[in-house]
């Protein structure tokens, strides 16, 4: 396609080659917030994280127990479907591999579920092998509520709506079950490098 928007030259921020997926821009120091409803505030003494569904035995960690799990630091680029990307974001938390370590399951999918009723679906293979974390720390500080605190999922290789804020657990499923945005016309998988923003992309 050779369409050119008359008079548009672009004012892109200098970004190292290969860092931005197609159609994305570098938001720089900003960190936009996009959520479908009010920010839920769950007290830490009522917080827990569950692994349930198609599992041999349900797992549950209280906040205190979760804090004792082995922690990892990650520095990753994140990409929002609304076209901003944020490079070199620093997070800390627990690898999903740790949370699923001894789970026996026939499931091939997971649904992450959150306070406030939010859900998002992912293939199990996309949250294992060092690709996903439950993070409670951003840039050296406890994760702020509007960014998903006390804890959110982080799956940086998919659009950021897959990184469920206020996450409270993973439900392992045999069938793929569309989550919240996936039921409202957004792509089921959401690979930013293939620009899978909306259903059918």
């Amino acid at each position, binding site marked *: 396609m050779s369409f050119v*928007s008359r008079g*548009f030259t672009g004012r*892109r921020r200098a970004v190292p080659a290969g860092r931005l997926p197609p159609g994305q821009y570098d938001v720089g120091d900003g960190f936009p917030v996009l959520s479908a409803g009010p920010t839920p505030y769950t007290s830490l003494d009522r917080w827990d994280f569950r692994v349930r569904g198609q599992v041999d035995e349900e797992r549950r960690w209280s906040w205190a127990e979760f804090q004792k799990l082995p922690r990892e630091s990650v520095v990753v680029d994140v990409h929002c479907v609304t076209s901003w990307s944020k490079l070199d974001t620093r997070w800390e938390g627990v690898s999903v591999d740790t949370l699923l370590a001894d789970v026996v399951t026939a499931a091939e999918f997971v649904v992450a579920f959150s306070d406030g009723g939010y*859900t998002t679906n992912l293939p199990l293979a996309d949250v294992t092998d060092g690709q996903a974390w439950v993070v409670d720390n951003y840039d050296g500080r406890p994760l702020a509520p*509007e960014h998903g605190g006390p804890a959110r999922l982080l799956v940086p290789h998919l659009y950021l709506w897959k990184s469920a804020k206020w996450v409270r657990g993973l439900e392992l499923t045999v069938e793929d079950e569309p989550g919240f945005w996936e039921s409202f016309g957004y792509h089921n998988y959401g690979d930013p490098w293939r620009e899978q923003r909306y*259903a059918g992309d």
Partner: protein
Amino acid sequence: MAGTAIRRRLSWQRADVLAVQREARRAYRLSLRPPDWSGHLPGQHVDVRLTAEGGYTAQRSYSIASAPQQPGIELIVERLEDGEVSPYLTEVLRAGDLLELRGPFGGYFVWPAGDGPVQLIAGGSGVVPFLSMLGHHRATGGLRQVRLLYSARTFDDLIGQAELARQPSTVEVTVTLTRGAPAGWTGLTGRVDARLLAEHTIPPAQEPEVLACGPTGFVEAVANALLELGHDPIRIKTERFGATGGP
């Protein structure tokens, strides 16, 4: 959760730009005629894509301001000084150009079904999707109770003044100006907080569907205050925009 899933891929298309008109101090109204348009839900958005010589592209999402009953679509774009796309749309684009877009997208932040009361709360250009909703409400008989609480910086920043002035009797529009009001201003002044919400919005006892749209800080404060007042979070939908707000 029941969704209005759209499984057909919506392709990029080149809309005719019919007009670009100043709407408010920093906002412009784009009248567009997409060649292939099968309608939208009030509150949905389109993605706009700009392409430079050499193939560099930039894309952004914009809420649709016009009602589905109106031919074509209108977008209202606020110019962000350090933006890349909005300065082009508001200062370079003109009638006769083509603008690439695709949509409509988003089936969540839309006009609620049913006949119960609806409370709309807008900060700045967050009023845009509500103009589409109010236009739809009017076009469909305007029977249910609707209130709009609209916070803008100054009188000159008000978007949709003409539309907001001609609403059916079921619609009550309350405007508050946060950075000074002109002489003779009879509306409210000051920021939206719990007190202002308590006095000028539909109370939680009437169980309104509440939609709040605006900059992140505004929506965050409004949503928290709504919970304080006793609204059920299940009936509060939010749409936030802007790159402000640290982690």
